[in-house]
């Protein structure tokens, strides 16, 4: 079951006139110049583009981690950026999963504590999620490392833990910011296989930003971003 899953015909993510401008002193840089697109539930979309094209900015806006200068991002029919801070936090905890290039695990927490972090932050009883935790540990093949802290893990392992953490609440959407950017080819492939399995098994909508031509094709659709606009 996906949180707030709507009819399959409704878009999961709907972006309209999305703009993002950065002002630094007297210099103004328009990173996103009015994007319009939709992503259907269960779709696996890759966003590609050269450095500075606005890929990560777009992903952060989709993840309610940044605020647009103009336009809207709707998730399951709700405008993310008209939400109050607490609503956004709840959304990030329960309906969205975010995976970063540099894993961003909490160094002082064990693997299982890191995976349970959204539950911990939500205040729900951890016991309720024991089975889910075990399942995710099995999926990412980290059952033997559950008590380890991140510093004892390889990059690939850390990124798998980050994926498991993003999935603990069984969110409808998983956002990945260059997930293989810091991994070797073997680990990269292993991670992408995991992501693709998640997409197929759970029907999770996946949006990834990537530089990799190889891994961009693993999805259903590729969006090319250049100078803040989609190119064909």
């Amino acid at each position, binding site marked *: 079951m996906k949180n707030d899953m709507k009819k399959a015909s409704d878009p999961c993510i709907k972006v309209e006139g999305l703009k993002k401008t950065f002002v630094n002193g007297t210099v103004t840089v328009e990173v996103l110049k009015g994007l319009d697109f939709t992503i259907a539930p269960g779709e696996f979309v890759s966003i590609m583009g050269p450095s500075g094209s606005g890929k990560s900015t777009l992903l952060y806006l989709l993840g309610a981690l*940044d605020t647009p200068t103009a336009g809207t991002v709707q998730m399951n029919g709700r405008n993310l950026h008209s939400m109050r*801070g607490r609503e956004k*936090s*709840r959304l990030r905890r329960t309906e969205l999963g975010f995976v970063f290039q540099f894993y*961003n695990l909490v160094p002082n927490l064990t693997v299982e504590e890191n995976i349970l*972090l959204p539950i911990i*932050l939500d205040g729900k009883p951890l016991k309720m999620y024991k089975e889910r935790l075990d399942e995710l540990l099995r999926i990412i093949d980290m059952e033997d490392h559950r008590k380890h802290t991140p510093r004892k893990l390889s990059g690939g392992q850390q990124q798998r833990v980050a994926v498991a953490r993003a999935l603990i609440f069984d969110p409808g959407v998983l956002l990945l910011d260059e997930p293989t950017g810091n991994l070797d080819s073997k680990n990269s492939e292993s991670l992408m296989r995991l992501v693709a399995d998640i997409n197929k098994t759970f029907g999770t909508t996946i949006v990834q930003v990537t530089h990799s031509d190889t891994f961009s094709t693993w999805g259903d659709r590729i969006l090319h971003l250049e100078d803040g606009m989609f190119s064909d």
Partner: protein
Amino acid sequence: MRIFCKYIMRTMLEKKARLVLLLFAITLSTALFFASLGLTDLIVESVSRPIVEKTEEHHIRIVSETGDSFFSADDIVTAGIKSHTSSIVLPGVIQNLDHEIVTLHGRTWDSLSPYTFVDAPSEDSFSGSSAVISVRVAELFSLERGDALEVLFAGETHTLHVSGIVGNQGVFYGDTNRSFDVIVPYGYLAETLEVEGLYNHVTAVMGEDSLDASLVLFNEMNPDFRGIPLYNEDFVASMVNQQVNALYFMLVFIILVSGVIIHGAFKLIVTERRRVIGTFLSQGATKGTIRGILLAEGFVYGLVGGAFGILLGIGMLYVLHDYSSPLRAYGVVEPFRFAGALVVYAGLFAIGFAMVSALSPVIRSVRREVKNIILDIREPQRKKGALLFVLGTLLLCGSALLSYVSPPTAIDYAPFVMLSAIIGVLMVYPRVLDFLISLFFRRILPVFRLTALSIQNVRTSAALRGNITVIVIAAISVVTVVSLSSSMVRIVTDAFDSMRFDIYVHNIQTNDPGSRRTIMDTLREDERIVGESLMETTSVEGNVAGEFAIAEGIEPGRFDDFTDYIDFTHGDGNLLDALENAEERNTVIATTTAARLGLDVGSAVDLDFNGIVQTYTVTGIVDVRLWNTRDMFFVNLANLREDHHIDHGRIYFDTHENPETLVDELQDYFRNFGGIVQTRDEARDINIENNRQLSRMLSAFSLFAIVIGSFGALNNMFISCLQRKRDFAVLESLGTHQGQRNRILLTESLFCVVFALVVVVLYGNFHARLIGQVASFLLLPMDITFSLVEIFPFLLASIAIYTLATLPLLVKTRNLNVIEEMKIE
């Protein structure tokens, strides 16, 4: 919750050095807070306890309303009192030992019942010239029963024989090798003094729930007698409070420095954990959750630091208690106690202090967009420097205006005025620094490249500017203590220089008019002494309008010539002229006394000295400066002698010979009366030494401020370095070597400390004026001057300490990994 707690504990323990720094700052602040809070009660208890023991736990002294020193106790009505003890009490000096001062108590055998004798003397043995002494005195002087004591009292030497030895209790409690008490049969003393049936020392235990109620009832029912408090703890407390207030004042500096350090440490915590905070936020943590976690960390630091601080504070109080026990040399130390509420106050202080100091970085930690926190992207901020500069200038100007234009108002609010000025300085200097560096950077860059880069770093790094703040506060505390101490020494020196005498005799242990006349005649007949220079004064403690007060008995026609320290000039005349005729009972009072008691010229005031109340008329008000800091009444010496039966005093005179030689010779004569003879220089040096005790305590606080400050500076250097790791990596990749990096770091430290000290030196003169006003607020009115020469060694020491504090940073940055630092971004 459990995982949160575990997380907090792990993160706290992760950085051991910072943990120690934070706990050190909180512990020391809490300990000093605890000790300052407990000091008043402690000293009052230490001083009170021996007195309570010596008075045999009596509360009331009964005097005759007729003013007679010796009176019959037969007609005392025991209303308001439970029981009373009547005796004759006389001072004396032992002749056959080493001129120890003794207090003779003429008692009946029955009154000795509470005492425990080491042997078992009979009532028969307590007769004639027999004497009961304490075990301590017996051991100190190897005295046994039957041994003789030659005692000079009532103008003659008498031989007493030890007839009993009792425990160190009651009147013997405070016996020392310099002064002790002896109980002799009442009949013997009464016969010797020809006062049979009369007593001069009657004390009683209060009969009602409170001392006041007992006194009211007793005085109502005894029109011929008057009950007065035998001992008033408020008197001691009021004396102690001055010093404790000064400590509180210095505590403010410690708290300021520690607050800046905790603030800085939390800035570092937030800086280091930006990715973790971002991760928490990306996983759905609310900003409140993040702030809650960080504040919980502050809470735990406060809790642990507070617990250590309370323990250290108890230790400090214990040492002070031990140190301030008057009978410590004899192994007698009062039981150590402190109010349980102090632990609660100190605990709350520690937790509150840690959390409040951490508040600002904690609030700022999640102010940025979540994405920017995760990626550590700094958002362009509205510059607040100009606003702070304007606010700081307003605070400084406001303080200066109040201080110079309306000094009385400034004194009333002196601590706040000083605090405003200090905060003003801290707000103004960053903008000045910014201006100066922007002015000179381009000019010095071509010549001193690394120095210019270092100075530019100070301009742009908030952490390094934080260092300047810490050093400024610590240096101001040093300036405060040094200026106060040197001003105290100067004031005492000036006061003694203003007095015209060569030799000074005090502590004369006789209140007998005959003995006093004998002493004065002897001195007048001594050809080595300038006869016309002989002058007597008396200082006596008493009670005026329920407040502790001092009467200074003087010879009005002589005193103005004796000293220039107090200016008694009033128009064409002199305020002391009105005191000439003792029968008029006039008094000249201190300005502060007039203000506090609401007295004016012409006011009638009841002066209660030696238990005798007389009404005086205020004929003049004068600024007594630091002659005495309590409520002060100048009266004719004759009034104290005739109206209050006070016949002891001090004697001043000049000599035709070398004062030092004469002092040695006169000391033998005055030893018979317990008197101490000193030259003016000796008296001045002793007075300076006594005043130094306070400045030593304040210096300790100042030292704490510097030590905590240096740790804080090191912390700020680490923050700054951490924030600029990538910059260093870039410099390294461009060919900068380790030596150059070290030079940059050292120059930054040196510049911070030198700039901070320049700020303090520029502010010094104004600060000295404010210290003077705070001193007046604390009832120690004095002119404080700022002397760069006196401060200079401390400035050099500060430069050395803060430069040394940079060394760990140099070691820490020795192995900078360029690739790692560049990659992480």
